[in-house]
């Protein structure tokens, strides 16, 4: 009797629900008769109300009315009042008013209250069909717009989560009193809008040794952020337990590979610095070269080429050693630095980074970060497509006289 059985199987996204509000009881029969093809095809569904108040109840009860076709003069609540009430509802309803052809004042009033269109009475069903067709197009457009908005919000939400994960795993660089000896580390990351998956970390292993790591996950979004958090946790866990750089990296790789259904991978450089002796034990898993800055020259630290993490569970990672000299700095970065592109499509590149580090001639970590990030930014201009991360570490030499030094600005003194 209500016609709902014909519309029950209709695709939920395509069907448009029309509420017809009129105090003439015959109208429902006319509408059903006239639109029986659309009802049968599941394109339209009709519900009816005898006045404005009843219409509002139906709108609230059903919750899925798209179009309201309403008469203006009705008992209890008229059509203009109904339009005003509909406007205050959160759901968007497209309204079509029915009015006597010479009732211009009411038609104008209805349009001013947000009606989408109007038809004149007595009803010309040909015109009604055209008008409803146009209104349905509008409703479908509204739906597409709201779906796009929803997707955008989901994406935004995903990026917010990824950004929160990424930020939460970076170490706090609390300024501590620097000492004339030992190690100072400073790191900074400029996240790209889409979250590129960079991270860095540093921590105390024991009285003499400090662990530090920089990494870059292939991929973006929440999955990349979680993979990055996992990598950082695994490196920290075996690093703080005192494992050598090589076995720490191999252990992290094994765990990352066994859980990895996504062919995601991460390049990473893990180093263990002895603050007393200046000895560096490291393992480079497919990461961009690390630069050693000394006497105004920046040279790549010779490393074995190892595979990035997360691909082959039993890959034989090979570590390396380096003896730091007092007043020497190590500069670690991600490819967000070397592959930063300018408007001409050129890369910032390793030679430019080496040239800059030679030119600024400082081993102070904070000053190195400032200089590198400023230079990359002036090279690329406004655009940044990938995370840009720099970690710098200075070894000041073994135990010195022990006098209080300056405070490490935004670095951490070990």
């Amino acid at each position: 009797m209500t016609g709902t059985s014909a519309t029950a199987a209709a695709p939920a996204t395509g069907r448009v629900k029309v509420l017809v509000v009129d105090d003439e009881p015959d109208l429902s029969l006319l509408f059903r008769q006239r639109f029986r093809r659309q009802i049968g095809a599941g394109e339209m569904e009709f519900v009816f109300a005898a006045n404005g108040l009843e219409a509002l109840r139906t709108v609230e009860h059903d919750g899925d009315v798209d179009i309201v076709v309403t008469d203006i003069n009705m008992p209890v609540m008229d059509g203009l009042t109904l339009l005003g009430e509909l406007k205050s509802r959160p759901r968007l309803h497209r309204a079509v008013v029915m009015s006597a052809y010479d009732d211009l004042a009411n038609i104008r009033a209805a349009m001013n209250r947000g009606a989408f269109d109007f038809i004149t009475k007595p009803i010309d069903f040909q015109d009604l069909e055209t008008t409803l067709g146009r209104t349905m197009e509008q409703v479908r457009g509204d739906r597409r717009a709201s779906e796009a908005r929803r997707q955008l919000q989901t994406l935004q939400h995903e990026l917010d989560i990824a950004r929160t994960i990424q930020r939460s795993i970076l170490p706090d660089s609390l300024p501590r009193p620097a000492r004339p000896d030992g190690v100072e580390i400073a790191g900074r990351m400029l996240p790209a809008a889409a979250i590129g998956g960079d991270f860095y970390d540093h921590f105390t292993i024991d009285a003499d040794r400090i662990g530090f790591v920089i990494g870059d996950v292939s991929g973006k979004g929440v999955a990349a952020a979680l993979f990055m958090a996992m990598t950082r946790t695994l490196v920290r866990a075996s690093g703080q337990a005192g494992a050598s750089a090589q076995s720490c990296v191999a252990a992290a790789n094994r765990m990352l590979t066994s859980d990895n259904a996504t062919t995601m991978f991460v390049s990473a450089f893990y180093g263990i610095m002895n603050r007393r002796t200046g000895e560096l034990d490291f393992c480079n898993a497919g990461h961009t070269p690390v630069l050693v800055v000394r006497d105004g020259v920046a040279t790549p630290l010779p490393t074995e080429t190892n595979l990035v993490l997360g691909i082959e569970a039993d890959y034989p990672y090979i570590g390396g050693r380096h003896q730091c000299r007092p007043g020497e700095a190590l500069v670690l970065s991600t490819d967000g630095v070397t592959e930063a592109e300018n408007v001409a499509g050129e890369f910032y590149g390793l030679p430019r980074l080496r040239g800059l580090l030679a030119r600024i001639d400082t081993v102070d970590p904070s000053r190195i970060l400032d200089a590198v990030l400023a230079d990359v930014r002036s090279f690329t201009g406004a655009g940044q497509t990938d995370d840009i991360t720099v970690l710098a570490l200075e070894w000041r030499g073994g135990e010195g006289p022990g006098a209080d030094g300056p405070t490490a600005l935004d670095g951490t003194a070990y």
Partner: protein
Amino acid sequence: MDMTVKQEASGTVVSLAGRLDVVSCEDVGRRVEELIDTGTRHLVLDASDMTYVSSAGLKTILHAYKSLKSRQGSLRIVATNEFVLQVMRTTGFTGIVAVFPTLAEALASPVG
């Protein structure tokens, strides 16, 4: 990014010219997967005219490598561009995938 596919006696040659980055890798990945799904087991990726590869691009190559390996197949890469070679060396890809300087050498090398 241009992609062409050619059948040779010792494998299917997929030639990629241009940038293999986050934009182009999706299409390339899908088409390579189709080749593997329809029976390709020995793939030669001719990257002679590739000018750039991003980590997303590497992921696509890695996916093909893993997929072929799990089906007892093989992946050979031809690379001459200095940047592309450097990325493959830095990330250790050259340690797990055979890289050749010319297509002729790649095709002449024994598979498996």
